[in-house]
């Protein structure tokens, strides 16, 4: 619930602070797809009484949010960094069209890959798209900068990215302030066709409008944009930084002059130039891509080129000390902790045993079941991105010698299937390989990996209340797949093994669903309240 006292002082995670700020900002609707470390924003937003929902994927979420913003509303769409790739198609062109209300994209990067398949830097994508980026460093700024992001979006009619990282999303800290609600937006469809239909004749001038907006925002950023300075004002070492890297730098280099930027695209280059003037040494402290250091050098500001080793992994106080000391050698490997593993009693373990029995080549996907690739199972053989198991499995079937092709099985979870696997199902129906194919959906009734969120296949909404349920096997039937069957992978293990073995031998298309609830939700009452980062998870005491 929103804090009732005003002024307020609360202990929140960064994600909860984003949600609180959005609620205080009187936003119209939140949508998104779960992805560590962004997943707790929408449930927290919903708990404040704001309309919030899970979409089947980030592209649909971004499009719903764009509809809200075209109608004059204020929309928040949440995703992890790789989710931005899925949403990129509408968002790149939404930068041209602009928005009537406000659209903020909370996009959470994962430097160091705590729970992701790559280390991409949203700042680089934002620059490619021409979408401004606001970067909070801690929980207080997560609150303050979320509100600033909405103001920028509304003032210039442009989508704005709120770039978060793991250590902003999942750090608990104190947020205080005086809560002032934003007046509600005016809801109406008043957009001219020329600004809302991006045919070439409209998009050419719209691109020029975008560049004009970015130039205006850069000027504002120089004069009034969000930034903070730390340390003495005249140190020989000037550090330019943003996000959580700023906090590490403040602790590692108390004697340096630090410029901590809040709006990192478009950059306030005049402010940076003035701050770094006549310094002996200029260093950009940043995670992932050398975005700041390259931008500074391109503008003629002689920032150092950071050693390549610092673009990998998270920064921390010790690494920033070493960066400043010019020690680029790779870090000592962390001590070997216990690697992640499927839970005791997980139905996926059972299924991977069966896949091993039939010697399957498993084209895998994103979810807990990706852990099937690790010892002792080692029964999942490819994994790149959400939904790829089906397309890649079909490509393998088309290409491998027949004996091997017959062993290829696409294995995908329920939420991932509904996210982007469904397009692969259509491809299988339309372009079947000569040896046929097998899709095996592991339906555990939840989006387990990211914290057991609901999805369109669970029959429940973001708050776990009943919703229309999409039956995955009905989608396969609608596509004309010949053999559609549902198994309980534990109680019907023999039948599923036989079905897989026979399906590998014939040339037909098969769609099997292994349906057994995740052990983390099987004891859960349907009325259980939404989890947030600050509530004990079902797995803990």
């Amino acid at each position, binding site marked *: 619930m929103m804090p009732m006292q005003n002024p307020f002082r609360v*202990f929140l995670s960064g994600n909860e602070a984003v949600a609180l700020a959005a609620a205080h900002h009187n936003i119209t609707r939140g949508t998104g797809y779960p992805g*560590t*470390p962004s*997943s707790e924003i929408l449930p927290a937003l919903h708990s404040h009484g704001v309309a919030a929902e899970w979409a089947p994927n980030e592209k649909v979420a971004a499009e719903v949010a764009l509809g809200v913003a075209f109608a004059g509303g204020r929309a928040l769409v949440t995703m992890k960094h790789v989710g931005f790739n899925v949403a990129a198609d509408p968002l790149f062109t939404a930068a041209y069209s602009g928005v009537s209300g406000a659209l903020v994209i909370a996009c959470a990067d994962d430097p160091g890959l*705590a*729970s*992701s398949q790559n280390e991409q830097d949203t700042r680089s994508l934002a620059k490619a798209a021409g979408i401004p980026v606001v970067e909070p460093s*801690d*929980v207080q700024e997560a609150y303050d900068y979320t509100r600033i992001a909405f103001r920028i979006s509304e003032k210039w009619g442009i989508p704005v990215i709120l770039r978060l990282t*793991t*250590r902003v999303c*999942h*750090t*608990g*800290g*104190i947020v205080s302030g005086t809560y002032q609600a934003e007046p509600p937006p005016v809801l109406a469809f008043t957009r001219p066709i020329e600004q809302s239909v991006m045919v070439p004749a409209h998009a050419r001038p719209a691109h020029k409008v975008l560049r004009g907006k970015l130039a205006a925002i850069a000027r504002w950023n120089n004069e009034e944009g969000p930034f903070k300075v730390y340390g003495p004002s005249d140190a020989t070492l000037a550090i330019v930084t943003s996000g*959580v890297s700023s*906090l*590490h730098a*403040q*602790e590692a280099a*108390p004697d340096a002059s630090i410029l901590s930027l809040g709006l990192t695209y478009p950059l306030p280059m005049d402010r940076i130039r003035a701050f770094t003037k006549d310094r002996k040494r200029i260093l950009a402290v940043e995670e992932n891509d050398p975005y700041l250091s390259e931008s500074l050098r391109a503008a003629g500001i002689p920032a150092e080129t950071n050693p390549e080793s610092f673009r990998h992994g998270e920064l*921390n*106080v*010790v690494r920033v000390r070493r960066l400043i000391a010019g020690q680029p050698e790779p870090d000592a490997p962390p*001590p*070997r*902790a*216990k*690697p*992640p*593993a*499927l*839970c*005791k009693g997980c139905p996926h373990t059972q299924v991977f045993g069966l896949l091993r029995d039939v010697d399957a080549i498993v084209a895998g996907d994103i979810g*807990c079941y*990706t*852990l099937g690739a690790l010892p002792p199972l080692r029964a999942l053989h490819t994994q790149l991105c959400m939904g790829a198991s089906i397309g890649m499995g079909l490509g393998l079937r088309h290409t491998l010698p027949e004996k091997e092709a017959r062993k290829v099985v696409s294995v995908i979870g329920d939420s991932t299937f509904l996210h982007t696997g469904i397009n692969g199902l259509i491809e299988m129906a339309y372009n079947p390989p000569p040896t046929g194919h097998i899709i095996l959906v592991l339906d555990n009734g939840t989006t387990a*990996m*990211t*914290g057991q969120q609901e999805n369109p296949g669970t029959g429940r909404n973001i708050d776990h209340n009943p919703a229309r349920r999409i039956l995955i096997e009905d989608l396969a039937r609608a596509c004309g797949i010949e053999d559609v069957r549902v198994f309980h992978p534990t109680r019907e293990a023999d039948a599923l093994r036989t079905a897989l073995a026979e399906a590998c031998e014939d040339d037909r298309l098969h769609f099997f669903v292994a349906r057994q609830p995740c052990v983390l939700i099987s004891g859960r009452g349907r009325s259980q309240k939404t989890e947030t*980062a*600050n509530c*004990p*998870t079902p*797995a*803990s*005491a």
Partner: protein
Amino acid sequence: MNPSPLNIKIAGLGGMGVLSAAEVLARTAFNSGRDVKKAEVHGMSQRGGSVASEVRIAPEGGHIQSPMIPFGEVDYLVTLAPEWEDIHMPELKSGAVHISTKAIDPTRLPSIKAINVAAMGILSTYLTEFPESLWIEALDASFAPKLHAGNRQAFAYGRSLGKPV
């Protein structure tokens, strides 16, 4: 120069209550008026594998910068999985206190799941700046009401095992 914060690391395996214990500790510090940060990683790394949470508490009037404890600066290490505790020893500052659940007799707990709360009971006897009432308030705020009585029992048992007065 910012005076040194109190650096507490809680480590264990997924499902042992590492994150809940850190929540109780951070809320206790928050309720006392101190600046506090709590850092952890969720998602795949949490699934059945090692889980750790780092809590940094500022001295009165001070503030916390990085949410992560610099390597070698842990003042208090709380380990809930004794077979995995050795890997954290290099992270300790010299003179640091290590609280291990090896000291806890599970038969004295209302449930083995309350072992994290008992460990916080032990820790509480070292952090004398926070009165017991603040801990109880944070415990109640972090768990469902049906667990409150059992948690108080586990916490009191932990305190009985703590630093000799």
